[in-house]
């Protein structure tokens, strides 16, 4: 009897069992290969316009761009590394301008229930507006294409940080505020030592969404500019180089992912086991 049971367990152990992660990875590979195969087949059998490259050609060109990121043969012929650095500089500048407004303003508004409610309709209306819609307005206001790009990035990425900061500051757990009150803490000390750290997880979550949006906006913001990955896409479209555009799409996605993960780490650091 015992022997029998033992045998069953050993045979089970020998048969291949996969963890959920391994299964997902396998499925991921299958999906990827199916997708690339379908694409390759479609391109070879003439299923798309002639400008649409095959998957193998795209992978080859992708490798060309990635393996040699830092060449510079003039403004219209730069390596992907330079393009990325230009774009990142613009996105981070715009994001920092937006955050430098959103965080202090959000804190001030969050401290007053009345002000927070009064400003909310503005946020709700302006938040869903597309970056392209801000471009003409930005140009009219800024009179300069570089500043317009920063303006567009800042104004589209400001809203999540602003509304999250207001939410975080105005929804501090009353228990923490009661502790400060029973100790006789001044208003300023309460804000500095209790309200801001309590709101930090919400604020960082807002910044994380905002940075994601700022990066999303880069292609639209660089329509009017030279240099940068967004400009590269517009330029390569004029050259009808679809492989370059697909390369740029992948690179934008990967860089966005890395930035999001970095902010995720910061979020865990300020959360201390609280909900974030």
């Amino acid at each position, binding site marked *: 009897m015992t022997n029998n049971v033992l045998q069953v367990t050993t045979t089970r152990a020998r048969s291949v069992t996969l963890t959920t992660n391994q299964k997902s990875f396998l499925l991921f590979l299958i999906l990827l290969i199916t997708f690339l195969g379908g694409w390759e087949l479609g391109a070879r059998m003439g299923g798309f316009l002639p400008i649409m490259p095959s998957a193998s050609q795209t992978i080859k060109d992708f490798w060309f761009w990635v393996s040699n990121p830092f060449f510079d043969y003039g403004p219209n012929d730069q390596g992907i590394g330079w393009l990325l650095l230009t774009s990142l500089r613009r996105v981070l500048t715009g994001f920092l301008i937006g955050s430098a407004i959103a965080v202090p303003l959000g804190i001030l508004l969050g401290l007053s229930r009345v002000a927070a409610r009064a400003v909310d309709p503005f946020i709700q209306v302006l938040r869903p507006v597309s970056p392209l819609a801000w471009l003409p307005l930005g140009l009219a206001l800024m009179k300069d294409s570089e500043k317009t790009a920063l303006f567009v990035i800042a104004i589209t990425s400001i809203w999540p940080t602003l509304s999250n900061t207001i939410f975080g500051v105005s929804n501090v*757990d009353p*228990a*923490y505020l*009661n*502790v*400060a*009150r*029973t*100790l*006789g*803490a001044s208003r300023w*000390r309460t804000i500095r*030592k*209790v309200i801001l*750290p*309590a709101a*930090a997880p919400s604020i960082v979550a807002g910044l994380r969404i905002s940075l994601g949006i700022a990066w999303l906006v880069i292609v639209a913001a660089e329509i009017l500019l030279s240099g940068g990955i967004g400009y590269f896409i517009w330029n390569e479209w004029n050259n009808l180089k679809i492989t370059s555009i697909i390369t740029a799409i992948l690179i934008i996605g990967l860089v966005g992912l890395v930035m999001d993960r970095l902010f995720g780490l910061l979020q865990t650091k*300020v959360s*201390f*086991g*609280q909900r974030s």
Partner: protein
Amino acid sequence: MHFPDSSTMTPPLNPDIAAAQLLIQNVSKVYYGRQTWVDKLLKQTSQDFVAIADINLQIASNTFVSIIGPSGCGKSTLLNIIAGLLRPSTGSIILNGEPIKGPGPDRGVVFQNYALMPWMNVAENLRFAIETVYPNMPLVQQKSIVHEYIDLVGLSGAEHKHPHELSGGMKQRVGIARALAINPEILLMDEPFGALDALTRGFLQDEVARIWEQQRKTVILITHSIEEALLLSDQIVMMTRGPAAKIAEVLNIPFPRPRKREELDQYSHYHELKAALEQHLSRETRAVEEARIRRK
């Protein structure tokens, strides 16, 4: 206010009142409903709710007082009024001859949900309290007080842990250490062990008894537990059910100290006191339940 020297003048009417450290006089709390014409127009009117009515109580220095009563009887409301977090609708609370106007560090509060700052570690939570109350105290002294009180509640070695790394019982030890570290005159505890499991609960009650033997502060403890009240208190205040909760009776608990949990039932009058408390609580709780059924 001018107080005449009582030794030369006629003595005050009630000697208890003169000895009292904390005096609760005619305190009631009404949560006013919405009854303005705007509310009537919007059909949003609601009734006034009297949480507690006409509470009178004198608490002498260095006594341990428990307040016990059915759920929702306004025990916490009374404690929050003493803490200064709520204003009474009528009456006043006098601490050492001075009426209480708001929250202050002469009263240390231990909260039911611990209320530790999650972003501060154990030592920082205590130091935040000390620094808030004594902003001019030298850092070295602040740190030695932090150390002393962490030691008192038996958390040495956990100074640099954050609250999410602590168990419920450990969190409440920090809560108690924080409340005591500012050296308050009165310690207010609002169902401090309510969220703990039975074993941890008993363990922490013993800890509080041990700390009380060392510190002998005036303590006001809100509790549901008869055992807890009998183990710890000099006096037990029984409150009636709400709305308009009142004090039904104040029991003196004459057990010797230090008390031992195992020997509690051998002290004289233990069984009578326990029976009185049980009878009161079950009668009030039954009435609360019945009122709830009838309301529906």
